[in-house]
Structure formats: structure tokens, C-alpha cells
């Protein structure tokens, strides 16, 4: 039996491979706080959303979490589930955000980053570390998400802008 590889499958694979490479590099950067990362791999998700729509972006994001987990040795660890819950939350947010007219990658990125952190935090608070003190950390984490979401959005918009111009 031969599986037919559609053009979209190949696109998803390419984008996911890119995102996983960035994810693995980033996973090795030291972080001052657990859960705080620039999230540059999500630039690829945003680019996928811009060019090919939500379906491709969702595939790229989930494949990145699973593939990154396998390569980084964190597959099925608490860190992996934090990453997965963040990815699912940010995808839900992006799905809603595509209904807002006039958003560029910057707006999408900020919304997705905040949702990612919120999803991650919800899992951490309800399952992994249900301590009221953790709530004190939430504003700091959300500030980091806002800053990194904004800067990631600028990168994504510059990238898709440059590539759109090169194609034109």
C-alpha cells in the first residue's frame, strides 16, 4: 500500500521540520523562569497561518510539540504536557482570532502567546503544582508572554513580508 503524499502534506512536513529545529535549539537556551521562552518556533506557526491558513498552522504546531519532545527527550514528561497544553490553548485562540478582521501576524502572535501561557499555567496550577503562591507568578509570566509574543509577531511579519515581496 502506498500513501499518497499531497502537496499540503509536504508543506506541513517542511514547516514542522523548521519549527522543530528552532524548538530544539531554543530548548537548550537557559531560562530564568520555568515556562518562559522566546517561543521563536511559533514564528513558523504564524507564517503557516499567514500563507496556508489555520489547518496547516495547527498541524505544524502540534507536530512541533511532539517532534520537539521526542528529539529533546522530554516526550510525555511534565514539560511536554505543559508545552502541549500551551500549544492547544494558543491554537484555540488563533482559531477565534481568525474571525477578527484586519489582524496581522503581530496581533495573532500576541493573542497566541498569551493563550499559550494561560493554558500552560492552568495545567501547572491545577495538576502539577496546586499552590496558591503560584498565582503570584502569573502576572510576571503573562508579561513575559506579552513581550515575547509581540517580538515574535514582529519577526513573523517581517519574515512573511520579505518572502511575499520576493515571490511577487
Amino acid at each position: 500500500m502506498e500513501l499518497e503524499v499531497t502537496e499540503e502534506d509536504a508543506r506541513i512536513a517542511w514547516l514542522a521540520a523548521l519549527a522543530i529545529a528552532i524548538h530544539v535549539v531554543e530548548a537548550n537556551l537557559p531560562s530564568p523562569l520555568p515556562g518562559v521562552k522566546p517561543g521563536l518556533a511559533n514564528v513558523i506557526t504564524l507564517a503557516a497561518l499567514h500563507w496556508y491558513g489555520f489547518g496547516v498552522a495547527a498541524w505544524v504546531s502540534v507536530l512541533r510539540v511532539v517532534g520537539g519532545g521526542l528529539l529533546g527527550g522530554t516526550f510525555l514528561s511534565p514539560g511536554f504536557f505543559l508545552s502541549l497544553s500551551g500549544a492547544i490553548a494558543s491554537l484555540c485562540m488563533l482559531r477565534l482570532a481568525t474571525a477578527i478582521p484586519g489582524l496581522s501576524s503581530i496581533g495573532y502572535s500576541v493573542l497566541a502567546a498569551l493563550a499559550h501561557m494561560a493554558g500552560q499555567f492552568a495545567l501547572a496550577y491545577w495538576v502539577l503544582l496546586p499552590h496558591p503562591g503560584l498565582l503570584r507568578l502569573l502576572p510576571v509570566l503573562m508579561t513575559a508572554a506579552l513581550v515575547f509574543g509581540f517580538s515574535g509577531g514582529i519577526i513573523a511579519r517581517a519574515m512573511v513580508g520579505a518572502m511575499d515581496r520576493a515571490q511577487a
Partner: protein
Amino acid sequence: MTAADRWVVGAALALVASLYVWSWGGSLGSDAGGSDAAAGVVAEVVVAGHPGETIDLGRDGEVEVQGRMGPSRLLVQDGRVRFTASPCRNKQCIRSGWLAHEGDFAACLPNGVAVEVLGPERGLDAINY
């Protein structure tokens, strides 16, 4: 940046700012995890070989427990409990200090006396990954 982007970033800034107010502004209590968690908590005192008895941490006072070697004294204050005296040699029980949170535990093994703070649900001791 489009107009919609500016709107989103503005809303996000407002959300984060309100989180600071909500989380640090006092609506969660002045000491999250300290006094909050202590409300209505009891501690269980176990003396070797006997079923445990509970003491109410909401009422300040001293409790004397008869152990194998002699009396151990427990002090209850501000929803916490600690050993203040025990006839053992190393005084590890006293060095354990205040027990305030659910699951906190101290024991005087020579005297056979153990104290544990109870709560509605048993949490995890630690998570490491």
C-alpha cells in the same frame, strides 16, 4: 501594525496590568499559602502504637503528649504547630520548626511522637523533572 493589532496589544496590556492588581493587590490575601491555607486546619498527633488524635490549629495553646520516654510539648499558634520540648537527645523534632501547610510533618522518634498537618486533600511532597 494594523489598527486591529493596536487594539489587540492595548487589550493585552490592560489584561496584564489588571492581573498585577488582582494577583498582587491584596484580593488574594496578604500571604497566599500561609494564612490562607491554615484556615480551619487540624493536625494529627500520633503516639507510637496508639491511634492518632487531632488538635485544632485554629486555637492557640499548648498540648502535652505522653510518649515512650516522657512528655513532649507542642505549641499551637497562628494556625501552626511545633515541638517545643521533648525528652529526646537530638531534638530533631524541635529543629523541624513550625508546621503550617497540609502534609507538613515532624516526629520525635525516640519518644515515638509524630505530628502531621492534615487538610482536605493530600498534596504531593515534591515534583522534579
